């Protein structure tokens, strides 16, 4: 009897040991620090959601790793010289572009239904419905004034204005009409809650990329499996698992324990943690730092009388050694920013005023502005008031808190007393910035796309006020008629030289006026497995996973 029991145990152990499992190279396990709150591609933008869903979907157009506009779901990028982008005059006299796209002939939803212009029309219908809850409502309701269909695969988008970016419809996220139409038509107001993206996320018909979402454990992990209807190059893995571990120390521990293969920069670890990680474990992984379109800066409240003087703003910038901060805190991985346009952006101009670290020059500017040294304390003006300012940022963000402390110390040396008053992100962004309650300076980041016209953050019509219900994101209250005119013209002046001249002038105004103090372009650190190649970080809001079919297992 005892022999039988032992035999049974050995048999059981053997069965468990031989249980089929995905081989190490068939499966990729990715760790991220946030779990998506929802799955609909057009309701509530979120970096973690984009990272995952971009393995299972493709936009019509997007920016690639070289920051060039490319076609993904379409066959060819529309252009005037190809005849697929035509300037048209509408009956009411307004002018806009008619832009023709052809859907990839093999594009198919995961349940075998072809992706057609019916899906395009349906998406537009939902997107422009005021109760659909789409985040980028403006695109569907105002920018696109009409869509005409030629056949199942070819359609023309009629755009409101003759914008230079006529070919770009990155945010037009096509929906499967055959699945979503019944849900939408039953109750448009409840669509965002009843969409199959939320109620039936693993339905193959929702996805058409190299992978489809096969399983979701809310708050924990998502499993993606190779999509049999995918028309492009064969994806490298049979399965991709994305696990969410919100605590970054625990996320790193998971990687070291072998439970994860990689941690992407889009929704992963902060830079300082990866720098320390690389020192200890860098030999086991490939660590890539990609500076991108996350513009870390200090918004200046131009209603503050002290900061209304541009000499004070220039002095603030010249009194801080951004190069040294980048070297000491970020190992030089975060390049210093001189304006809001990244040097990797095509429209970047170097022909602007720059403010290298020069405490002597900063002192002279402050003297000229009426703030003079009186002993070791902060500078004072003629009325005896001290040069005291407040800086706010997101509480709990270690990197920003460290940066603030260094800035505070450097400003102190220049005779500027700066108090730090941080707030939780929901308070800072939810009220303080939105209602412009910050007294002097606010340190945070903007994310944007390549060649993004900074209208919402710099145009004088975008200043949040009580009268307009605090709408707009020009928190500094920057007002410059020339800058306004340039931003208006940039939408429609497409000739490259003329457009570049406008971009250069806008950047010059920004550098001359300093509505914000440029700090760095944040670098996203990616920890990648040595056995995978082809992962190319993009540096902008469109994730690396849009090209997952190009990732390869090293032989």
């Amino acid at each position, binding site marked *: 009897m005892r022999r039988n029991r032992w035999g049974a145990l050995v048999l059981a152990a053997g069965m468990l040991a031989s249980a089929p499992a995905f081989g190490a190279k068939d499966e990729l396990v990715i760790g991220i620090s946030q779990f998506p*709150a929802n799955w609909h591609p057009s309701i509530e933008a979120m970096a973690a959601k984009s990272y995952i869903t971009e393995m299972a979907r493709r936009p019509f157009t997007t920016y690639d790793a070289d920051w060039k506009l490319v076609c993904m779901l379409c066959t060819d990028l529309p252009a005037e010289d190809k005849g697929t982008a035509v300037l048209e005059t509408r009956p009411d006299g307004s002018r806009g572009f008619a832009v023709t796209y052809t859907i990839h002939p093999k594009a198919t939803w995961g349940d075998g239904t072809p992706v057609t212009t019916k899906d395009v029309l349906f998406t537009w219908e939902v997107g422009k419905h005021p109760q659909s809850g789409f985040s980028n409502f*403006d695109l569907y309701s105002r920018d696109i004034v009409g869509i005409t269909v030629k056949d199942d695969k070819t359609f023309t988008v009629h755009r409101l204005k003759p914008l230079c970016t006529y070919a770009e419809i990155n945010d037009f996220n096509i929906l499967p009409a055959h699945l979503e139409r019944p849900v939408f038509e039953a109750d448009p107001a409840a669509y965002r809650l009843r*969409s199959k993206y*939320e109620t039936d996320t693993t339905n193959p018909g929702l996805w058409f990329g190299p992978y489809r979402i096969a399983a979701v454990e809310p708050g924990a992990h998502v499993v993606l499996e190779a999509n049999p209807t995918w028309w492009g190059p064969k994806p490298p893995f049979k399965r991709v698992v994305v696990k969410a571990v919100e*605590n970054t120390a*625990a996320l790193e*521990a998971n990687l070291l*324990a072998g439970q994860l293969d990689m941690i992407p920069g889009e929704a992963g670890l902060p830079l300082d943690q990866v720098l320390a990680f690389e020192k200890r474990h860098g030999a086991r992984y490939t660590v890539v730092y990609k500076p991108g379109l996350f513009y870390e800066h200090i918004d200046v409240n131009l209603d503050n009388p002290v900061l209304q003087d541009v000499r004070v703003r220039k002095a603030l910038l010249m009194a801080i050694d951004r190069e040294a901060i980048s070297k000491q805190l970020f190992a030089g991985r975060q390049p210093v920013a001189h304006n809001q346009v990244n040097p990797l952006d095509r429209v970047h101009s170097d022909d602007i005023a720059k403010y290298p670290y020069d405490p002597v020059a900063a002192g002279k500017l402050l003297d000229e502005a009426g703030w003079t040294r009186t002993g070791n304390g902060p500078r004072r003006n003629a009325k005896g008031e001290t040069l005291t300012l407040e800086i706010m940022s997101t509480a709990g963000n270690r990197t920003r808190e460290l940066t603030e402390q260094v800035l505070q110390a450097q400003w102190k040396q220049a005779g500027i007393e700066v108090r730090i008053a941080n707030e939780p992100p*929901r308070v800072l962004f939810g009220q303080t910035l939105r209602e412009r309650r910050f007294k002097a300076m606010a340190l945070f980041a903007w994310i*944007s796309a390549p060649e993004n016209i900074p209208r919402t953050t710099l145009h004088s019509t975008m200043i949040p006020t009580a009268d307009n219900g605090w709408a707009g994101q020009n928190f500094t209250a920057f007002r410059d008629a020339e800058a306004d005119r340039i931003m208006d013209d940039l939408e429609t002046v497409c000739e490259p030289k003329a457009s570049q001249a406008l971009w250069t002038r806008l950047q010059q105004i920004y550098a001359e006026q300093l509505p914000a103090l440029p700090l760095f372009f944040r670098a996203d650190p990616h920890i990648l497995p040595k056995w995978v190649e082809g992962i190319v970080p993009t540096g902008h809001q469109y994730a690396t996973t849009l090209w997952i079919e190009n990732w390869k297992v090293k032989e």
Partner: protein
Amino acid sequence: MTRFLLSRLLQAAVVLLVMSVLVTVLLGLMPGDPVDLMAAGNPHMTPADVARLKALHGLDRPLHERYLNWLSAALRGDFGHSRLYSQPVLAVLAPRLVNTLLLLGAAFVLAIAVALPLGVYAARRPHSLIDDAVNLFCFAGISIPAFWLALLLILLFAVTLGWLPASGAGPVGAAAWWERLPYFVLPVLTLTLASIGGYTRYVRASMLVELRQDYVRTARAKGLSERQVVWRHALRNAFIPVVTIVALEFGTLFSGALVTETMFAWPGMGKLIYDSIMGNDANVALVALLLATATTLAGNLMADVAYAALDPRITFRELRT
């Protein structure tokens, strides 16, 4: 007993109603609504988008109107939808509740199961080497922050030794219950070690008082074994104050352990409550907090019933306020 239970149920209903108003007001006072937070992170959103989305989510209506709408729906069994997860509130709460009950329930039972004999053992040998060792263990458990303990256990058992998984509630895909067991170990161990110290100290203190009572001396004089004196007589009386503490802890069974859940990526109630408050998901936050209140009230009720069971001198008439 029936009158006692009915009166307590009535009190509970009033408390829950007051709590629902309080939580609604506090959530409403928090700066920024979810649409403002969306707009702050998305420079492409226009002022018109913001206004439209606020109207869509009902955020343009006054707080009292939103509360009354919620209350009338809740009384019909509809607790609303989660703004963050785009699902009915109960669909969001239910799986998290199960996860939390499993985790905290196991830790709770384990902590009591260890604390009881440990506290009794230490109380029987006051100021001995064993008592000192138990006290040191207790103070360490009380003092060490949960997140640090969690990280230490992960580093030791998952990273260095590779014996246990570092996080998660189970392996990816459908898994049998025994395959999920390894994922329980570290979070349960963290929670147990964090709470064992407090319970042990309560039991020890209570036992020390009881073991000095006259009835204990009488029981020994009667010739009862030490085991009978301690476990049948002294512990029963010593347990009454401990029941109070345990009953209060019972409420936390449903409110989760935020830090532990975050460290181990355990999808439980603690994390859900935190995320819903920070993300201004008012429906989820409100229902989750009311659930935590209800379980605290239930814990108190159980404590009162336990008093009557433990001490025959206490009647339900005396327990009624």
